[in-house]
């Protein structure tokens, strides 16, 4: 199993959710995060005190997947979350050792 972590632009969340549902990915956890890669921040000004704000709001999606779902999921995310501009985000894939469904006790693939 794999844990797929995608950091995307916040306004793309609905598109990504829909795209993932279409390829059969049924659950996800979403967090609001801040971050930057190559995208420049912006300047805020308060009565002459100028601040450069590097950290931009992003959305992080975590999905637990079977190994054979990973490629399709990555393609779906890239298509849905991409705008072609700097700041579209990144996808990371981690090994997932174990998964448990709390209600039933099912493990691993049965829990996904």
């Amino acid at each position, binding site marked *: 199993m794999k844990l797929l972590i995608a950091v995307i632009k916040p306004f793309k969340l609905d598109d990504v959710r829909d795209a993932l549902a279409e390829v059969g990915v049924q659950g996800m956890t979403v967090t609001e995060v801040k971050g930057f890669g190559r995208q420049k921040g912006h300047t*805020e*000004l*308060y*009565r*002459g*005190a100028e*601040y450069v*704000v590097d950290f931009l709001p992003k959305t992080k999606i975590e999905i637990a997947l079977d190994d054979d779902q990973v490629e399709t999921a990555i393609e779906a995310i890239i298509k849905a979350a991409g705008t072609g501009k700097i700041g579209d985000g990144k996808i990371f894939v981690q090994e997932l050792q174990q998964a448990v469904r709390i209600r039933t006790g099912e493990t691993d693939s049965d829990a996904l």
Partner: protein
Amino acid sequence: MSIKKVISLASGLLLMLPMTVYADEVNGADTAWVLTSTALVLFMTLPGLALFYAGLVRAKNVLSVLMQCFAIACTVSIIWMVIAYGLAFGDGGSLNKIVGGGKILMSGIGLDSVSGTIPETVFFMFQMTFAIITPALAVGAFAERMKFSALLWFTALFMVLVYAPVCHWVWGGGWLADLGFMDFAGGSVVHINAGVAALVAALIIGNRNGFPDTPMPPHNMTLVVMGASMLWVGWFGFNAGSALTAGSSAGMAMVVTHISAAAGSLAWMACEWIRYGKPSVLGIVTGMVAGLATITPASGYVGPAGALIIGISAGVVCYFATQYVKRSLKIDDSLDVFTVHGLGGMLGLLLTAVFAASLDGLGLETSMGAQFVTQLIGIVATTIWCAVLCFIILKLIDKTIGLRVSTDEETEGLDIVLHNERGYTL
């Protein structure tokens, strides 16, 4: 005539009796207006100024600012009643040119006491709201790092040693009044006192940790705008109420106050737009405050055209002053009390002389030049008195209980450290 008609006629006549008894002294319309203005000016502090400042500080300090404003309102109210009203408006006997006296615990002020055409109780209350807002304004300078106990002591001593005497000089029959110093609603008594106290406090207590390199943006600009809006509305009580009558003087004061507010807002906004490319909401509301502070001393003496120029000048002058103090001098008068209120008050006092005598001003009893000099004397005297006494008071407090919280406490935030509370549980 029927019994019903006789009774209604008799009750009508009886109801008119109290008015005929007081007709020569207390005027109902004046009283009603000053009562209303009192509420408006208290509203400027609670919650106007409180919200304005609360939104400008970081979230971890939001309650500390609200607490300070609230506690100042309470403390000043009691001190005003116990001693400060008498010091400001009472008869100081042989010292009356410098300070008043008497009326301790409001003794001698009863239902029948009159001040001008209003009950003295109403005058007492109206003036109290001015006394309240002055130290509350100064809170902006030492926000996010001052100890609450120190703030309470400062407020009490400031009231008795700075506010009350200066108030007496200008409005209580003291030496500035004798000189013909013109300050309609508190350019010196309120704004210079607050601004200078703020600057001295900022210098003594020191900059916030991390200033100016660490970003400390306002945590809630919506609160700032809400508070600023309340200040605009409340200021009608501040300036138009200072006419102490319900009539043409109040009407003109309201007009010039409003025009200066609008002009100051647009002037600051324009400066920012030109300089930085985008107008900000903090800029427009600060310009409004600058316009209002500057028109305050002039509000009973100038005409609408003069007010327009006063407002524009306020927006521009205070804008550049704020940039200078913050960016060049790097003094952490956190909420710019000195450059907006202090300088605004000074500018307004000087422009009073100019525009009372020109552009449909309401007239001067002396020449513009002579009045200008008188205004300058008042400005300098108030500034020096306030600066010296605030220095002494703050140093004294610092040596005894300490003015500032520790570095760790400042980092954690005053709400938790001083008040054991959180502003937001989200």
